[in-house]
């Protein structure tokens, strides 16, 4: 691989000791790619058909049904005026001519979030139960969150090529930590007397988790879902660089063409979608939260 780190321009006083960790990592990624190719193909098939399925489903819906669903969600979890506002936002996006790409973006975000939750909640539970696992996972999660998100795009292309699946992969890495962290925190923070009382009735570990710990932790987990969703949305725009379709792609096109109009329309559409997703998942979370706090 052609490596250039601007050695020619940088007059470093550091001795000429080289440990090329970047090369080790890239070799490792190469090795993974060739060794597990069938696995990646399999994941690719599942992920891409999931995204396509959701996208087709959304596009199959008549536009007014979609708006009605948005309105109902807003009404149920916030207020009737919020419901009207969110539906109006989505209608506006449609009038920009961005309806189809909006659906693509929603499909990618939904897929990422669902996979995040399927992976993140069990991992969080494991971390809550095992101190050792938690100690190992914490620095990994820190790294996942602090590594510049563009870096994930490279292995994503490597494993899954250009396209929506890579976008989901990169998005996942970025949006997984909050749900894992908050699940762990939530399970650990369940009132010790509540745990003791469940134990005193002779609950098995599984009964305890299913009937007491997870339900008690749900409000905090929901807060994690809200964060994960927002981060997924943020990442979906960046992921357009690896060929993800959707609103992010429109922003990218606008940048390339220096098309201020398209840039604004696509940008404001993302803002609308962000508001909608944040308020609705936030509304769901606070509904659970209120139940808990009133205790």
């Amino acid at each position, binding site marked *: 691989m052609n490596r250039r780190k601007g050695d020619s321009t940088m007059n470093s006083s550091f001795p000429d000791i080289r440990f090329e960790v970047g090369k080790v990592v890239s070799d490792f990624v190469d090795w993974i790619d060739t060794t597990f190719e069938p696995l990646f193909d399999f994941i690719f098939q599942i992920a891409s058909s999931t995204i396509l399925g959701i996208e087709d489903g959304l596009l199959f819906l008549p536009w007014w049904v979609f708006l009605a669903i948005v309105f109902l969600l807003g009404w149920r979890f916030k207020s009737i005026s919020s419901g009207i506002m969110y539906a109006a936002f989505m209608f506006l996006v449609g009038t920009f001519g961005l309806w189809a790409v909006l659906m693509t973006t929603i499909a990618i975000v939904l897929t990422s979030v669902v996979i995040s939750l399927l992976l993140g909640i069990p991992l969080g539970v494991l971390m809550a139960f095992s101190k050792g696992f938690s100690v190992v996972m914490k620095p990994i999660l820190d790294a996942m969150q602090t590594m510049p998100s563009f870096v994930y795009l490279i292995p994503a292309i490597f494993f899954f090529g250009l396209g929506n699946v890579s976008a989901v992969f990169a998005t996942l890495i970025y949006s997984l930590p909050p749900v894992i962290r908050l699940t762990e925190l939530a399970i650990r923070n369940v*009132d010790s*007397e*509540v745990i*003791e*009382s*469940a*134990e*005193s*009735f*002779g*609950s*098995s570990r599984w*009964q305890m988790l299913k*009937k*007491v710990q997870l*339900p*008690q932790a*749900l409000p905090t987990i929901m807060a994690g879902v809200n964060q994960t969703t927002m981060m997924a949305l943020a990442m979906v725009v960046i992921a357009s660089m690896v060929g993800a379709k959707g609103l992010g792609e429109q922003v990218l096109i606008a940048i390339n063409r220096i098309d201020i109009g398209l840039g604004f329309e696509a940008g404001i559409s993302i803002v609308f979608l962000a508001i909608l997703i944040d308020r609705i998942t936030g509304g769901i979370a606070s509904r659970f939260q209120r*139940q*808990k706090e*009133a*205790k």
Partner: protein
Amino acid sequence: MSENIKMKVQNISKIFGPKPKSIIPMVQEGKEKDQILAETGHTVGVYNASMDIKQGEIFVIMGLSGSGKSTLIRCLNLLNKPTDGGIYVDGENVVEYNNAQLKKYRQNKIAMVFQHFGLFSHRTILGNVEYGLEIREVPKSERREIAMKNIEIVGLKGYENKYPDELSGGMQQRVGLARALANDPDILLMDEPFSALDPLIRREMQLELLDIQERLQKTIVFITHDVNEAFKIGDRVAVMKDGKVEQIGTPETILEHPANDYIEDFIADIDRSKVLQAEHIMIQPNALVSLKDGLKVAVKEMKDNGISSVFVVDRQRHLQGIVTIDDAIEGIRDKKSLEDVLITDVNTVKRDEYVNDLIPKALDSKFPLAVVSDDHRVEGFILRVHVLSGLIGDESEQEEPVQAGV
């Protein structure tokens, strides 16, 4: 009380720290808690505690915070595994139970009520009370029925579909109690169940617990830091200090014969009127007049006993009223019958009422208080002056037979 021992706690020690077992020899040598902490960094929670808990009694473990009482009660259902010693329930050492046996033991024999209730905030009252049955996989309709019955026992009928946060503290603890009772355990552990409640509600709950206990006859282990509460509800009381059991006995024994200075201090400010009951200060009803006897007999009875009023009963000793000497003499003069001059408005008390509760009645009444059984049979009298003197000392309990009442 039957001498059936339900739970035998034998030399239980609980030590917290990295190597608890290694501390046991030091405990057996009798080293002090502080010394062990300083030398080894281990905290001794419970220190060689032994006690026999009898079938059907309320056994109170009393101590200040840090005395190890909560640690000890958690050993009984193995929320804390004792470091050393044995706990025998129905002859089996539960400390040696494996996981499956332990689960069975907790599901069937022992249930616990917690200081801060430990309710499941995501479940309704019904869901909370059903929990133990659900764990035991009791069929749904059956567990609903049992849960409803227990919700009714604790007086929360109509609240079954509410969530815990919609109820007051007192009501929440009733849910805790119902949840424990729903499992129909032999042994009920109560860890400072009423400490988080305000004083009025606490008193009400204490009475209600006694009431429920009368009906259900469970073996109850009750933890409290409140001496008055301990003596009020305990059949027997164990006093703990620094992880050690200092004395075990009935409230009266501990009051009369405190084992050491610490306990003496502990009970110094206890309100005797809240421990002593009517039966402790009442005097035998040696002067009674039957309704059939008539006024002359009543006068003679008063004269013989040197008293100025006498209680009137029927043949079965059911209380009918009281007659004063003035009324009796006037009645004889006017040729009236005993019934005509009988004062039926007499204050009565039950033998297990606390002296403290008698004070208003004593102040309110011109006559001695009659102690009656549930079917209104006369069991004794309490002179008003004794209600007040009972507060001060113990000499007042030995009475001269003179009823100098009114």
